[in-house]
């Protein structure tokens, strides 16, 4: 809708619903901007977040990690890049935090080219900053990125070292102490992935989980776009599922509650997802409002047409 049309001379003569229907879409953009930025500023100033009631799928993720014995090996695949970090970084942060707090041994890999850098930042923000006693090579290791998507997964099924011959420090896989007993993917009792699309959670189910014959459990966090497609796998093939920022906020609140210390406030970096639920609320209400207004226009026009 061009500005020229909007300012048509006989615009005033049109009925209200016609004028509303022809509204410049930039006003809708402005509304969306205000709907998202308002709560961000309010939460940023007050520090208040909305309460979260974890759903079954998010609780399953927490419980699956929680029930693992200390020192268990977990394979964490960071399959996203900065483009989806708004949704997925809070999940990755909380997942790594729970694993570190549980003293699980974490092996990071990436099937997205930029996933290696995301993994590195997460390791820095959570492990190095808050769990400095954990030692690289013994308690966690970042194996970096490998090209090949499904073929890397296929290789992981039979030979971990062939799929990831070195870690991000340049150390050969065979020299890494915590990987001494690891031959293949099924040596990990749990696979955790945070994925933005292809290759991601779906491919992990198709190529690894199906082939591992229940030796390896799988929990995953994914974007809103891919979450609906993953529900058919839950809970048989995907034991726990975090869908979109809501899943992240639910899981984050559970991890925070489990690690809460009396009198000590949770570090703000571990409240990222819950903070984002504020703008989410207002923007969703706006979306509902826009759809209702759109339909009011539709029915008003229909009635006028029928008359």
């Amino acid at each position, binding site marked *: 809708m061009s500005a020229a049309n909007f300012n048509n001379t006989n615009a005033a003569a049109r009925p209200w619903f016609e004028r509303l229907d022809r509204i410049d879409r930039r006003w809708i953009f402005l509304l969306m901007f205000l709907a998202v930025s308002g709560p961000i500023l309010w939460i*940023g*100033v007050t520090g208040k977040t909305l309460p979260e009631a974890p759903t079954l799928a998010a609780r399953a993720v927490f419980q699956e990690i929680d029930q693992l014995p200390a020192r268990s090996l977990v394979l964490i695949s960071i399959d996203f890049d900065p483009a989806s970090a*708004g949704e997925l970084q809070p999940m990755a942060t909380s997942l790594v935090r729970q694993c570190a707090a549980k003293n699980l041994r974490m092996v990071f890999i990436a099937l997205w080219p930029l996933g290696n850098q995301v993994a590195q930042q997460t390791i820095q923000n959570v492990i190095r900053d808050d769990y400095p006693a954990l030692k690289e090579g013994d308690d966690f290791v970042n194996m970096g990125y490998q090209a090949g998507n499904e073929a890397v997964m296929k290789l992981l099924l039979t030979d971990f070292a062939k799929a990831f011959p070195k870690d991000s420090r340049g150390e050969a896989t065979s020299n890494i102490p915590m990987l001494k007993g690891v031959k293949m993917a099924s040596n990990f009792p749990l696979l955790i992935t945070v994925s933005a699309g292809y290759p991601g959670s779906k491919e992990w189910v198709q190529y690894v989980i199906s082939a591992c014959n229940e030796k390896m459990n799988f929990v995953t966090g994914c974007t809103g776009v891919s979450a609906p497609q993953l529900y058919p*796998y839950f809970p048989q*093939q995907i034991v726990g599922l975090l869908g979109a920022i809501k899943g992240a906020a639910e899981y984050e609140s559970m991890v925070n509650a489990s690690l809460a210390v009396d009198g000590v406030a949770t570090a703000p970096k571990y409240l990222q997802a819950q903070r984002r639920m504020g703008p989410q609320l207002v923007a969703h209400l706006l979306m509902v409002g826009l759809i209702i207004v759109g339909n009011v226009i539709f029915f008003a026009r229909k009635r006028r047409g029928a008359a």
Partner: protein
Amino acid sequence: MTRQAKTWLVIGAVFVALIVARGMIGQGLGRVYVKRTEVTAKLPDAAAVNSAAAAPSASASASTSAATTAASTQATAGPSGASSQATTQSSAASISWQEWKQVPPLEFAAAQKVNAAQTEITLSWPRTIGLWLAAFFTLAIFSFLYADNPCYKIAESLVVGVSAAYWGVIGFWDTLVPKMFGALTPGLVKSLVQPSLVAPEMLQQISMVLALVLGVMMLWRLLPRGGWISAWPLAFIVGVTAGLKIVSHVESDLMAQAAATMKPLVVSVTDASGATNMWDSWWASVANVLLVVGVICCLAYFFFSVQHKGVVGGAARVGIWYLMITFGAAFGFTVMGRIALLAARLEFLFDDWLWLIDPNHFRSL
């Protein structure tokens, strides 16, 4: 200028005025502070020292390291200037350099309070410029919402160029070097990149020769003639992908999904005391019935070998309803995802750049 354009001009001017005003009050706008850290690496022997002399950033001092501890040079280490603020020093058996880690402005203020002349934590100009550039790119892309414009096109062109090179470089250093060059030229990779490299097996070397040949054939596509040669590696990719997908899809998306649909239609949910919970049993049974009916009806809709009439037609119609609900759910989740991404970008603008909010307590406690 139309009334509409004037209105947007005023709105834009208000935003710009607010930003300028923000820059003049309080702590000002986005700045990045860095803290100096010392990194020392022990050189294994004299021969290795010479090898280190070839290092792209630590060259000048390392070559003289065997002699004395005197050498100390400023090494320009890249356009970011983050490492470029690094100095390299050397001693008989080790080299050291400085790295600069980002710290919150709060730490800078605290350090200044203790000692105003301190240089351990300083303002990083390269990163501050980077931050402002990031803000510019964010706004440039948002400017597309008003209309297509040169700022958006510049940002778009940059994404394409930088991403392509970025992926190429990552593919080279992360996969080609350790796997292909590590197998074909292990000596070179061991001395220059990865001293821990494990000697390759014969089978690995043969397979990497095959990969190299296929790779070169694939790159043939870039040449003006002989494009058909690239059909060979393409055939390899198609064949391997087909072989992988047949098994995985049948196993996880056909068999496992069919098995997961075979659910009891009447479910009895018991509570902790062992008594049957009527409402929960009712809801669980309804859920299972709806699920089984839904899968069958949707499959009936996709089944085109029979005309969609009578029972099949009815089932297909119910299948369409299920699919519409599926798409509605997908829409809701997509909206959720996109808004989260928008929130993250606006957080960047308000927090990192404009310093309007401080959710992470980087500037105030």
